[in-house]
């Protein structure tokens, strides 16, 4: 008799949570000024209890902590979105970006950025809204295009996603050329980075991730059934057409959350669920929460590398994930071909 799912799930998630806590402690501690774990804990306790701050608390509480938390939230959002799309496409190589949603969210965010170029205060509220609107409009357009011939099948969805993605990237470049004055900040943002991290961003992304994770966590059995194919899932009692749309909407929310605060960060949504699946198998009851935590760990560590490797110069974190993720993707392709 294999280990019951409940126990396995509890073990895997506990181990990952401990790992995430450690990664976050390390990430908060490292930087221009290194801080030990006890000092970090004390600073956080002081902040929570409202006790008077001591020297150095500001760096930990106002700068590093929100940044590390934001990295974790972004990583969790991207990895969760990856899990959802991989279930939807029944393809472990699927990624949120393939659908064109990231490009859509990017365009929405870039338009918001250029429109609010002179009003920094406005940016915080408008950029995520722009990203979400962009992601939703993109997915509506992609789904419409894909279902022109009746039902929504996965092949046409992929084709439509790729086509729209190209068009939206071109539009993004077009907008950037038109508004040259804000180009530098947009380019940096497009490469993916958490430089601007602050508590308001954390507070904004948290509910988006919470909803984006809670909905599919209530439907892990349906996610498993979708892996058998839409028709079979339907035969086993899933309203596949509706469930697909729900997944796409939830995915849009997750992508918008990530893109609006950190720009375009690739490969986390692809890499993390894949690695987790290799270890624990395809069951979404474990895969989804484990990938979310795994994505958080990957992102926290990637951001740590981004700001410490070439310090004081900071590399956009999207470059770090691409540097690791590119070879990983190639390895995946080679491995798959080797199996055939």
């Amino acid at each position, binding site marked *: 008799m294999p280990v019951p799912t409940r126990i396995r799930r509890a073990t895997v998630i506990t181990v990952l949570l401990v790992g995430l806590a450690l990664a976050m402690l390390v990430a908060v501690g490292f930087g221009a000024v290194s801080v030990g774990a006890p000092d970090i804990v004390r600073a956080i306790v002081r902040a929570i209890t409202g006790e008077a701050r001591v020297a150095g608390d500001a760096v930990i509480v106002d700068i590093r902590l929100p940044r590390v938390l934001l990295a974790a939230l972004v990583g969790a959002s991207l990895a969760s979105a990856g899990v959802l799309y991989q279930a939807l496409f029944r393809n472990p190589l699927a990624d949120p970006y393939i659908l064109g949603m990231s490009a859509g969210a990017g365009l929405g965010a870039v338009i918001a950025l250029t429109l609010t170029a002179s009003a920094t205060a406005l940016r915080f509220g408008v950029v995520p809204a722009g990203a979400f609107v962009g992601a939703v409009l993109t997915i509506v357009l992609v789904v419409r295009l894909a279902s022109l011939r009746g039902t929504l099948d996965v092949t046409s969805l992929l084709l439509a996603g790729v086509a729209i993605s190209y068009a939206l990237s071109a539009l993004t470049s077009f907008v950037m050329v038109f508004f040259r004055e804000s180009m530098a900040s947009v380019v940096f943002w497009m490469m993916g980075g958490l430089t601007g991290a602050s508590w308001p961003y954390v507070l904004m992304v948290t509910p988006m991730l919470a909803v984006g994770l809670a909905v599919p966590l209530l439907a892990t059995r349906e996610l498993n*059934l979708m892996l058998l194919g839409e028709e079979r899932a339907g035969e086993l009692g899933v309203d596949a057409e509706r469930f697909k749309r729900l997944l796409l909407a939830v995915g849009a929310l997750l992508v918008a959350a990530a893109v609006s605060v950190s720009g375009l960060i690739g490969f986390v949504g692809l890499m993390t669920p894949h690695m987790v699946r290799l270890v624990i198998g395809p069951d979404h009851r474990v895969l989804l929460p484990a990938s979310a935590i795994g994505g958080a760990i990957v992102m926290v560590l990637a951001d740590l590398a981004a700001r410490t490797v070439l310090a004081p110069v900071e590399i956009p974190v999207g470059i770090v994930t691409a540097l690791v993720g590119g070879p990983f993707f190639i390895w995946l392709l080679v491995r798959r071909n080797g199996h055939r």
Partner: protein
Amino acid sequence: MSARLAYETATVGYPGVTVVREATLGVAPGEVVGLIGPNGAGKSTLLRAVTGAARVSAGRITLAGEPLAAIGPRERARIVGVVPQAVSAAFSFSAREFVLMGRHPHLGRLQQVDSADISLAEEVMERTDTLRLAAEPVDTLSGGDLQRLALAQALAQEPSVLLLDEATSHLDLNHRLQVLDLVRELADAGLAVLAVFHDLDLAARFSDRLGVVAAGLLGPIGPAPEVLTVPLLARVFGVRAVVGTDAVTGAVVVTPVLREEAVTETRRGRVLVVGGSGTAAPLLRRLHLAGYEVQAAALNRGDVDQAVAEALGLERVDVPAFGEVDAEAEAAVERMAAGADAIVVCEVPFGRANLGNLRALARAAVRTVLIGRFGPEREFSGGEATALVDGLQAAGAVTVVEAGEAVAEVERLTSADSPPSGR
């Protein structure tokens, strides 16, 4: 008994395409209804319409009297189980997990499978001979194992209607019978089964009724012996077939003789064949394929040669099973012989019962081919047959060794420019 699954003048298809028009069929508890028909006729579409994968554009489908449109997917999945043609297993769930997925419609949003679900899953795996695979990842299993697991998964739904779409196509002989015996057993326990079959013999053997799906229509529907007739097989499948009864199971057995399109367009002469007990069947088929207008001399009903002649739709003279070629039959054969361009006498023994065929030939005096020497081993008429054969030979009959030579001889005799055989 009222139907548990009913098609009520249901027109089914896909957006913009109608596949089957106005199908009417009821499947009662305890009943296995088989659907047969050519590829692409819409058998699977009829099944898929029940689970919403195909559309019902007119009429309706009901489950236990309730229209399908009023039943949600979860509720429907508690009523209807499906075993699909092909099962995909791209991800490495264990076979046990795979079967447990069939419990989905019975589980609440936050409910987990419990020991009752697991023991039910193991019971259906036992019955489908898949329990020994329980811990195997499904993406490493064979098509046959997957098909039986899909049946186990469907049974884990505890359905009262089971739809089988070629559910035994990937199974070996043993498992095919095992699965169909299980389905029969489940039906006897009250399950309503609608199954698509490719194999007509299996369909006839395991179904209480058969429904034919062809040319966008469902029908006729009825017991196998009433549905599987020579003209229907020719019309629906374009195949000339012998319809017999399996000696062991008593089920209807269909033996295809030839495809309609295989018959050559060339029209050739008229050939009368004298046979019996299977001596003429291959020759009848060959001559028919080659485009001759073949006629069969008197044959007993139930004789293999008679069944083949019937399947081919040949002009023939039938006499009752074990009956004699009487004066009337003899006269009919004589008329055929007089109009024939060639006659072939197969290597059949002659006795009192079939001597009439030879007597009819003797009077007609048409060019004749005899297959095999006529020796004492074929003489059961006290010398009369030997005398008649001698007479044929004296009149110029040619003797050949086997059917192939006979065909060549017939070709020579019937071609217009050949000199009459005068030896």
